[in-house]
């Protein structure tokens, strides 16, 4: 994943409403805007707006089915962003392990 593609993924997920939409779609079934609006507190316009943000981040894709747009979840961007963070996290583990060894490895621990 290009670095430029990751920030929108994190930003898209930084919102409870969108997370809820992702959770709903992550079941695997494609849903229409009407289905995603049903039973919730959000208006159709609000749901549409959030779906567009998710679509731009590649987390959902839409396809036409007759007159309706159906939205489908794509797990790849989240998985790739997750792998990236795991890589950064592992890098910090190594770097901080070296810091600890560097400081503690000195005689007496406090060089003056």
């Amino acid at each position, binding site marked *: 994943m290009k670095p430029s593609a990751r920030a929108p993924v994190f*930003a898209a997920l*930084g919102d409870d409403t969108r*997370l809820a939409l992702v959770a709903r779609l*992550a079941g695997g079934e494609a849903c229409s805007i009407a289905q995603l609006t049903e039973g919730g507190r959000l208006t159709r316009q609000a749901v549409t707006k959030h779906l567009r943000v998710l679509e731009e981040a590649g987390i959902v894709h839409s396809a036409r089915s007759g007159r309706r747009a159906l939205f489908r979840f794509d797990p790849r961007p989240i998985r790739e962003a997750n792998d990236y963070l795991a890589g950064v996290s592992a890098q910090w583990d190594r770097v901080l392990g070296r810091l*600890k060894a560097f400081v*503690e490895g000195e005689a007496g621990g406090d060089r003056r």
Partner: protein
Amino acid sequence: MSDRIEKRIEIDAPVSRVWRAITDHVEFGEWFRVKLEGPFVAGRVSRGRITYPGYEHVRWEAVVQRIEPERLFSFTWHPYAIDPKVDYSSEPPTLVEFRLEPTAGGKGTLLVVTESGFDKIPAGRRNEAFRMNEGGWGQQVKNVEEYVTKTS
């Protein structure tokens, strides 16, 4: 998954010693494996070259943010910027913070390192709603993660 990384590490040395290892640019270079061109100065760009074997082609560049003696050292940078063919400068930088606290009656140090900003929204510009929701982020994402694993 979370949009921030936090590491806590106990070091068996006083805060003053750990502080020097983190903020003296020569000592920093020893464990971070980078040869820095000069001392860290708040508000200034820090440049250098990675010395880790196999990564000598990688340049180090960060902007030092805060230097609060024996408490906080922070900089912004582009994490994982190891591909020389990619121009990372247009990407939003992340914020790295080193926080130090004495432990064991001053004999030890608790070092907390956080890296944040992967979602590129500067903290100061986040709207109130987002800030209020931050606490729930971890759990929410865990839920999503479960779904992701399930559907993979």
